[in-house]
């Protein structure tokens, strides 16, 4: 043989190992490290599925009265019983998820946009602009939230869009304060100075250097904000300033007929109340876990040196 180098054929058995997709690995690690956060995530996903496929999941329409079945207790046919005019509670709770999810996500999206604009501009421009904006934010934050929102909703009138608008203006002040802080600390980094020295314009510095580094903060705030917004929406509907009937909102179901008939038909109040609590719980847990993972300062360890 002239050529001494032999090529050894790889045995067929050595196949490429089964690769678990990266995304799945990340999800599994999240579940192991933050079990409560994982429960929260499951609740959040369940809520979104309920909202999106409400018309497939709910056996009845939300305003359909089933003849001859007023205030029936929970049974195989009506999982959560029926209300005082014979509507299926389970269907109403499922449709109620739509209100919560719509108001929650739309408000948080709008809040984030407002808050980012206010916070980043205030941090970047600084000077007199910063001082004036921050004093207005101070004043806005010192009113009791519920009182402002009641007055604002009374001014705008009831309805889904006005509710979202009022809630996002309310939330933007506090959120912008945190984003401003994050943006200020990002701007201390040498790479921002380097970018400026290289002749980058304001827009380039803000969009390529400051904003990407504030994103983690914004995502955490938004996730935690979702729970708060859902809570606020249900409180407003409870007081009768939210979504007008017959469209089912959890807070509204708890308030009107839910409260007047609760001694005879407790399921009319219990299930919407449980739905609100579970939804808020889910978003809080998920947001908390996300924050713990993204903020290394809050990981556990240390503490008491002895004992």
């Amino acid at each position, binding site marked *: 043989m002239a050529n001494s180098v032999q090529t050894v054929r790889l045995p067929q058995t050595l196949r490429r190992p089964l690769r678990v997709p990266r995304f799945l690995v990340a999800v599994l690690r999240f579940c192991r490290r933050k079990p409560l956060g994982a429960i929260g995530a499951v609740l959040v996903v369940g809520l979104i599925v309920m909202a999106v496929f409400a018309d497939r999941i709910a056996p009845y329409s939300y305003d359909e009265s089933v003849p001859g079945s007023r205030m029936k207790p929970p049974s195989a046919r009506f999982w959560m019983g029926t209300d005082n005019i014979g509507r299926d509670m389970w269907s109403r709770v499922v449709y109620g998820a739509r209100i919560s999810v719509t108001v929650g996500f739309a408000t948080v999206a709008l809040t984030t946009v407002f808050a980012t604009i206010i916070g980043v501009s205030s941090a970047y421009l600084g000077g007199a602009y910063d001082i004036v904006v921050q004093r207005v934010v101070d004043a806005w934050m010192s009113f009791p939230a519920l009182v402002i929102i009641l007055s604002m909703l009374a001014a705008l009138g009831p309805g889904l869009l006005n509710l979202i608008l009022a809630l996002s203006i309310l939330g933007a002040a506090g959120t912008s304060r945190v984003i401003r802080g994050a943006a200020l600390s990002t701007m201390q980094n040498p790479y921002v100075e380097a970018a400026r020295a290289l002749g980058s314009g304001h827009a380039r510095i803000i969009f390529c250097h400051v904003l990407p580094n504030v994103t983690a903060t914004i995502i955490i705030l938004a996730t935690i904000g979702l729970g708060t917004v859902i809570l606020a929406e249900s409180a407003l509907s409870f007081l009768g300033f939210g979504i007008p009937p017959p469209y089912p909102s959890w807070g509204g179901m708890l308030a009107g007929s839910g409260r007047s008939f609760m001694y005879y038909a407790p399921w009319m109040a219990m299930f919407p109340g449980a739905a609100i*609590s579970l939804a808020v719980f889910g978003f809080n847990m998920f947001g908390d876990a996300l924050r713990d993972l993204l903020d290394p300062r809050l990981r556990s360890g240390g503490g008491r040196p002895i004992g």
Partner: protein
Amino acid sequence: MRTYVLRRLLIAVPSLLIASLIVFTLPRLIPGDVVQLMLEEKAYGKDLEDLRAKLGLNRPIPVQYLEWLGRIARGDLGESLWTRQQVLGELARRLPVTLTLGVMAIAVAILIGIPIGILSAVRQDGVLDFFARSAAILGLSIPAFVTAIVVILLPAIWWGWTPQVRFTELSKDPAAHLLQFVLPAIILGIASAAGLMRLTRGMLLEVLRQDYVRTAWAKGLRERVVVLKHSLKNAIIPVVTILGLQVAQIAGGAVIIEQIFGLPGMGQFLVEAIVQRDYPVIQGINLLLVVIIVSTNLLVDLAYAVIDPRIRY
């Protein structure tokens, strides 16, 4: 200290003026004419114009605003458009109810939140920590009005017991008067307690890892001294700040709790006034709330100096 308080009070004047402008304009943006509403429900005047003139609502809004300010300066908040009662008198009657509820709720928040937060931080990842954190998350997730309904409902189903609906005046039966606030105050305070507990725990955990705390341990000081004297004082300032912000939150929460428990406080008054578009009442309540919150902020700032001797005014 005295000059600082004086300066703070002076700074508060412009923000109160801005707040008064907001307080005055917001209710007037409510669509629907109060005069129309009144004429339909109760025949107070001959026609729209006549009634408007009687109520003083026919003059330009800036004039109305200045008049209102002038009367406030003389300690007069005007009278309700509907009942013709003095707003100030009505507020004086209702403020004690809300104040009792609020103060008790804050006491509940402090008494539950801070001690459990401390224990939870000192025994991080222990059994108590686990339960306290889970309870705090539940407390933050379940809205006060849901808790309230469950608390009213369950005893009613199980034992047929319902809380009394009739309000007992302080002068009639002081013990019963205070007793009827206990349940609402606990429900209102629990959400704040959960927030305070988490914050106390978080701040204390950070402080417990500082070098000087290790030194304190090394000196052989008792745990109580290390935690309460050396660590807590340095961890508590943000907690006090949040406590100040909780006052605003509790004022808002009181609106709902008063509705559920039938307490004749300011919250009930406000909701009625908004529905009826009773401008002087809405303005009066909001202004009072702003004053309470501004003074709370001042008290919080003064409390910093008491807690931390490095802060001097």
